């Protein structure tokens, strides 16, 4: 074979393998989604949303877990979003170029990919041990620590896209910085910032490990943030590994709910981001 023919053959082979790898990744995604649909859908009924968790065979649902998840994510957002928003604004507006901003950006990147189970251990040490019990607050704060780095990163990226002239125009009218930031810059980047918050919700909604040692889970009706609180991921974790068929079925139903929610949020935010960039 001539050298050219061999090189062409190599090129062709590598292209075929690469295409195969891409196809494989799509097949695996489809496989996971198919597993969720085929096992989750049959288990999904009104009882999942209307009844709280119950002993095996008693026909329980996931209501307390769903409500617990929503409460903890809500509280995590209320705590985490303002801090993340302010920190992202600091990085994009005030700190840029300074050593301290570089350090903050670096630390934020580390927090963004730090193992989430360690956040759970940290909040356990910080809150659960001194207070003397697991609680919805502890779970919410653990989730807030996961929310912050996501919001910081997207806020900074989005603010960097806001044209300089917009700020200059506002400053020229004599507006103080807080007005320029809140009324002009944030407003111009609004869609992007909301996207970041959606991504943060998606991340917090699927996390299990940080809740293990903080809000613990609760098999009763639990809406007090001062007591252990149920959550969807923890309920799935407990049920999936159990020997009872109806519990495993509920775990699949819960897994389907979470995945559909998280993937929807992700696709939505990607659509908005694609439009902005």
């Amino acid at each position, binding site marked *: 074979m001539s050298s050219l023919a061999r090189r062409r053959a190599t090129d062709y082979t590598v292209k075929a393998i690469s295409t195969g790898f891409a196809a494989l990744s799509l097949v695996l995604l489809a496989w996971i989604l198919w597993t969720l649909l085929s096992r989750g859908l049959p288990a999904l009924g009104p009882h999942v949303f209307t009844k709280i968790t119950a002993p095996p065979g008693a026909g329980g649902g996931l209501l307390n877990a769903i409500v617990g998840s929503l409460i903890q994510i809500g509280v995590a957002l209320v705590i985490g979003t303002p801090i993340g928003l302010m920190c992202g604004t600091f990085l994009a507006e005030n700190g840029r170029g300074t050593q301290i901003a570089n350090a903050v950006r670096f630390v934020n990147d580390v927090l963004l990919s730090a193992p989430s189970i360690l956040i759970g*251990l940290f909040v356990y040490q910080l809150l659960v041990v001194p207070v003397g019990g697991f609680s919805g607050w502890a779970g919410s704060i653990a989730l807030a620590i996961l929310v*912050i780095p996501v919001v910081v990163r997207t806020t900074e990226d989005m603010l960097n896209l806001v044209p300089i002239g917009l700020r200059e125009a506002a400053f020229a009218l004599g507006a103080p910085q807080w007005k320029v930031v809140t009324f002009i810059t944030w407003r111009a980047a609004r869609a992007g910032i909301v996207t970041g918050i959606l991504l943060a919700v998606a991340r917090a909604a699927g996390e299990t490990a940080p809740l293990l040692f903080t809000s613990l889970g609760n098999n009763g009706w639990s809406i007090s943030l001062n007591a252990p609180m149920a959550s969807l991921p923890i309920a799935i974790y407990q049920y999936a590994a159990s020997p009872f068929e109806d519990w495993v079925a509920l775990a699949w139903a819960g897994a389907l709910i979470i995945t559909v929610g998280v993937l929807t949020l992700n696709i939505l935010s990607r659509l908005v981001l694609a439009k902005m960039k």
Partner: protein
Amino acid sequence: MDATLTGTQASSVIATAHKPTGRISDPIFVALLWASGIFVLILLGLIIAMLFEGGLPALKEFGISFLWSTSWNPVTERFGAGVMVSGTLFSAVIAVIVALPLSFGIAFFLTEIAPGPLRRPIGVAVQLLAAIPSIIYGMWGFFIVVPLMAAYVQPPLIELLSPIPFIGALFQGPPLGAGMLTAGLILALMILPFITAMFVEVLESVPPMIKESAYGVGATTYEVYRNVSVPYGRAAMVGAVMLGLGRALGETMAVTFVIGNATRMSASLFAPGATIASTIANEFPEASQGSLKLQALLELGFILFVISFIVLALSRLLVRSKLKG
């Protein structure tokens, strides 16, 4: 003033010029921004400090040999991190070894081969793999992958490879399905989208001129990829791989479902094992407050933090050095 002043610099100049008008709202606002920035720094410091402090008694009890001692016996209260540290590194390295060629291939496909209209949808689909929660991977792995491994993958491999001296030791033992290899494969699938996304970003930052000159002298698409694009972005790509490694080190729920959770040392890929994260998740419910076991678990957490911090920090430095010039 320099004409190339960036917007923020300009705005801070203007903001400074504005200050003498005597408003008090602005200093408060700026102070809040600074406080949030510094809060993130303090947060990381606190996490390190709390984990270290929590694990300190275990470190004092067992000394530095805690790091490599392989005993983990709650009954006699002898604890060591050896099995978990090696399990963490072992499973993460398997994940990277499996994910790396796949990422190279998919990134090549997405940047050079895929027809234009298909690029975005396929790219997004690969990214969605990263959005699926860890516990879903765990369930899928536990109910689907583990039985498949036990029935179809491990028996032929054991028959074929275990008699071979030396590497045979990797393939010893009963085909349980759950174990180090299964955990590594699931982790590979989980880190694949992160590595691929960063590879694509790096490859797209290669100046077209360089690639075109290679095409001009008659190189094939693969040759341009291999000899021009990849070397150009090598540092950032190594960073991307380390980011994937960092993620694999700390994954908890998926691994807990499929690794088998045995705190014994074994060389076999098929043997059940444990990682730091899976051990913490598994054994925490049985560790009472103030017990030596809890302290040993916190110490494990601290070790995991140090390992992932080093890996993530290196990856950030490598990625930034290239992408941000």
